[in-house]
């Protein structure tokens, strides 16, 4: 393979992987700390993309739209947790699966009612809408590099948040011993609400960042959801580090798979998952 093409594929793979990481980290936080399996997580990604579309149109500025979108996503997350999710904590996973599956239907149709079923595009912010030339004929979109950079920044911010702040300490403690945290006077209900909202915001942000590249269409949430699950399974539930490693692995595998093995392209990711499970059923960084 031509070295420049190889570089492009690596960059694409990393960018896809980092985007997946954003979505999957929210999913793994919600699983690991709240103990909820949330099938509607992909819907948040979709909501983010559609918000990017409408808000950019209204506000005229992508970055403003991004900020507004994240705030709206946080509000949505808080509301959803309070209205519905908090009743799922004591329930069996089975009921969580079922209820969140119902939520997918609700979100899909709500999206259809609000925004219709058309495919939309979102413009890359003008200042960043150019490409870096790599050879005479090939160049790389700067926006994709920006996406990767933003995702990395978020990953670093999450690390800082979870490992170095009081909030992060409470989150980690709440994951290990809910009752103890409560008896220490910390409002665990609020804590869980914040964590859930954080998860939603991460997914929505990913959708917003991806919108200029992947366009905005119905069903985009579903695709991302399944792959995010695979990321979490491979990385290990509750492990943000695992989600990062697994997401990059999958991003690269999927990208190179499409180029090298087009007949098996869709299956590569799942074959990878099968292989990991045979070797280590709890995921790479999962606790037994």
């Amino acid at each position, binding site marked *: 393979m031509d070295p420049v093409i190889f570089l492009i594929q690596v960059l694409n793979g990393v960018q896809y992987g980092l985007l997946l990481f954003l979505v999957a980290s929210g999913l793994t936080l919600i699983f690991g700390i709240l103990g909820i399996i949330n099938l509607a997580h992909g819907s948040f990604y979709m909501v983010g993309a559609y918000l990017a579309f409408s808000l950019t149109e209204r506000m005229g500025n992508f970055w403003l739209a991004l900020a507004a979108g994240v705030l709206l996503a946080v509000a949505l997350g808080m509301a959803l947790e309070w209205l519905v999710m908090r009743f799922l904590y004591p329930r069996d996973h089975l009921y969580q699966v079922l209820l969140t599956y119902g939520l997918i*239907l609700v979100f899909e149709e709500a999206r259809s009612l609000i925004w219709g079923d058309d495919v939309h595009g979102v413009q890359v912010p003008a200042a960043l809408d150019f490409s870096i030339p790599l050879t005479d004929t090939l160049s790389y979109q700067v926006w994709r590099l920006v996406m990767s950079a933003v995702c990395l920044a978020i990953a670093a911010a999450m690390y800082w948040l979870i490992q170095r702040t009081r909030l992060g300490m409470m989150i980690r403690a709440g994951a290990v011993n809910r009752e103890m945290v409560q008896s220490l006077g910390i409002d665990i209900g609020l804590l869980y609400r914040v964590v859930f909202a954080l998860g939603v915001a991460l997914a929505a942000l990913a959708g917003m960042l991806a919108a200029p590249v992947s366009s905005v269409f119905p069903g985009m949430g579903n695709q991302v959801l399944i792959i995010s699950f695979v990321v979490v399974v491979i990385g290990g539930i509750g492990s943000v580090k695992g989600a990062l490693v697994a997401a990059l692995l999958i991003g690269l595998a999927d990208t190179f798979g499409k180029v090298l093995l087009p007949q098996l392209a869709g299956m590569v990711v799942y074959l990878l998952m099968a292989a990991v499970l045979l070797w280590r059923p709890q995921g790479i960084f999962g606790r037994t």
Partner: protein
Amino acid sequence: MGRPLQILLVIGLIALAAFPLVGEKFYLQFVTKVMIMAIFAISLDLLVGHTGLVSLGHALPFGVAAYALMLLTPEYQAAGFWTSLAVSVGVAGLASAIVGALVLRTSGIYFIMVTLAFGQMAYYYVHDSKHLGGSDGKYIYVRPALELFGWQPFDLEKPAHFYYLALALLVLVYAGMRVLLAAPFGRAIAGIKENEHRMRMLGFATFRYKLACFVLAGMLAGLTGWLTAAHDGLVNPEMLSWHQSGQLLMMVILGGMGTPAGPILGAAALKALELVFQGWTKHWQLVLGLFIVLSVLFVPRGLAQLFEWRRRRG
């Protein structure tokens, strides 16, 4: 099983048997579909309700069998009833054996997600395969021909005949399930669902029983796939999608897991609700979604819960 439910089931059976005499074609086909879905739901309930294995990938053996029938049906001709049925169910069982050997190494959330992912793997394989019809799928123009020692008493092209085939299979599967659950195997999986750790400590090789269950459920799903493909005359990748698996899980949970009639009630209720909601609004999935959310919050043990006056013990 509570008396009221027993009576309801008997009445239901009689009504179902008599229905073709009075029903119009549309409703005949609708009820046939419901009965087929009921068999599908029973097969998933074996895994979910009776063994505690929550699979989100039960569409895999279903779709595999459907595609098997498609491949076995010569263009514009009928496949043999017995051979195509045996092969379809067999292939579905084989697929389940392979997938089961892998996924049963996990449990809990991992198991749910892994079954989901394997289902998707099958979906993508079929979706991307030109020779299998790709995303459009393929048609089955003629239904299988049922021959008994060279004699063709039934014509499955007739809606009423297919209806009775589906009804007969439903009754057979239901009865078979009751027998299975009362047998040592059924008690073993009940023990595994309740306390797998203790079962192992008591000397049961639990993996074997879970795998057997997985394969059995897969074969029944295969039966459903064969029936659906024969009835609809079309196979497409959507039959393997996680939406199919998700809908099925809905039926099982809403109807009441681990109860005799739960899966049947769930299949009937969900299909009926779909029909009703579709009549109300184009956005019927919103109503369905809300219905599901509210059901889980307020009627946790499903419809069958509403029929049980006395709780069963032991």
